[in-house]
């Protein structure tokens, strides 16, 4: 018997343990119930909702300008990209387009967000698997991106920078110089990242062949982002359904064929380089002009339905707005990448050892507020 009064050994002789909701490796308040046969995982059942804040319900009472800010609190590591998705969806409904200057700044910010998110993930993955140094290395560079964010948006994490029609205010005069300096520094550190973790024997042994996900299963489970691209599934929304001018940029969609933790790891490592390349293409080419298109004070979307898909650092975020013509949405649905990625956890973990669960969780890169919303 455990504290909840449940049997910890089932009739089949399986041992049941609860990981979380307060456990460092779950990266948030996620509760996993795990059935074990010795050390082998038989089944994983995620229990969600510990931080469900009903953002969708709240948004039904907020205006089309205000509901955007709640989304910074979903996937807080891709806060800017969430805001961008909502702004784009409202723009789609209004029939306006962000100004060229705003579009470029949005992409710059989105890629900086992706970089900082992947760096935090890289540090935490190292930490989860027993390497402490990566965490400090990653935060050394990430901190500088956070400072750029702070200078331009006024916030480090929840930027709230995108508004319908463009961005809230223009970039800081230091933005371009500072970004270029940081990019130069980050580029020089990629080799260091590989030296300290990627080629490490212990790390490779703990990730190679662990948590296998086939391409067909990745699609069936609705996995997106690096989780699916590690299984050779092409799913980058920036390529499939470009928005804000991604179609004009030169970058590769990274896929790996391994389908294991190591493949997912490598996808993110290469994606960081692609993000740097995108930033370098744009940083000297920010068009002059207005940073916000003219919109009415009170926004009203015409009757109908609008769907916007974007690529966050974790996969495909879908914003589905149903409007009845009023000043606030009739119904909003966020198709969050983490929710679908988490549903594949049980499938990936079966047959692995209990210690591998940490590696699998790490390389799915879950952000729990985005799962619970």
């Amino acid at each position, binding site marked *: 018997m455990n504290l909840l009064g449940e049997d910890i050994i089932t009739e089949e002789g399986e041992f049941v343990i609860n990981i979380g909701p307060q456990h460092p490796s779950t990266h948030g308040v996620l509760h996993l119930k795990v059935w074990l046969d010795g050390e082998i995982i038989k089944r994983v059942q995620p229990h969600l909702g510990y931080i469900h804040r009903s953002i969708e319900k709240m948004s039904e009472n907020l205006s089309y300008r205000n509901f955007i800010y709640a989304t910074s609190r979903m996937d807080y590591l891709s806060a800017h990209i969430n805001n961008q998705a909502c702004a784009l969806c409202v723009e789609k409904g209004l029939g306006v387009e962000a100004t060229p200057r705003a579009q470029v700044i949005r992409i710059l910010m989105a890629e900086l967000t992706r970089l900082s998110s992947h760096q935090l993930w890289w540090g935490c993955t190292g930490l989860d698997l027993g390497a402490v140094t990566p965490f400090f290395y990653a935060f050394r560079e990430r901190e500088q991106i956070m400072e750029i964010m702070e200078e331009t948006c006024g916030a480090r994490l929840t930027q709230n920078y995108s508004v319908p029609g463009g961005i809230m205010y223009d970039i800081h005069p230091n933005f371009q110089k500072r970004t270029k300096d940081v990019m130069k520094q980050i580029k020089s550190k990629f080799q260091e990242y590989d030296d300290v973790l990627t080629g490490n024997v212990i790390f490779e042994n703990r990730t190679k062949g662990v948590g296998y996900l086939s391409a067909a299963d990745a699609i*069936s489970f*609705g996995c997106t982002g690096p989780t699916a691209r590690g299984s050779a599934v092409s*799913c980058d929304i920036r390529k499939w359904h470009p928005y804000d001018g991604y179609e004009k940029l030169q970058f590769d969609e990274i896929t790996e064929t391994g389908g294991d933790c190591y493949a997912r790891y490598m996808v993110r490592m290469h994606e960081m380089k692609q993000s740097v390349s995108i930033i370098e293409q744009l940083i000297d080419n920010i068009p002059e002009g207005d940073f916000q298109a003219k919109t009415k004070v009170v926004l009203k979307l015409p009757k*109908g339905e609008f*769907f916007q898909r974007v690529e966050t650092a974790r996969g495909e975020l879908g914003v*589905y707005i149903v409007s009845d013509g009023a000043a606030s949405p*009739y119904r909003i649905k966020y198709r969050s990448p983490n929710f679908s990625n988490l549903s594949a956890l049980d*499938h990936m973990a079966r047959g692995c050892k209990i210690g591998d669960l940490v590696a699998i969780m790490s390389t799915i890169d879950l952000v729990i507020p985005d799962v619970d919303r």
Partner: protein
Amino acid sequence: MTNEELKIAVSALFPSVTYDETGEYLTVLISPAELSPLMNGLRSNGDLSFDYLFCLTAVDWKTHLTLVYHLQSKVHRHVLVVKAKITDIANPVIETVSDIWQTANFHEREVYDLFGITFTRHPDMRRILLDESWEGYPLRKNYVDENMIEI
């Protein structure tokens, strides 16, 4: 496939369905009874092969509930929306599609949790975000929360 071609292909399989072309994506309108054969057809037909269910949700229209399925084909890249209208608000029931797309398992549990729509043949029909003891379905328009303050 373009929307026109999609329409012809779907009509060839299911002549009885109707369409709504006002939105961004082509929308197929069906009744709950038609759901299972239609979805199986959309998934297995080689020209359509909708293998990726990227969004599954419901909308409460007060007089009826609508289930909205957003489908995409990874092979052909086309997108289709399927909407099933449930008129029985007191006891809404529809068949599961979790045997066709595994992602539907979690998404249907979410819809059950927040809208109270039951999915038959679902392997694990429990609440997912809220506690089992929660009363009512929050995303229904008639849901009353005494703690909510209207500004």
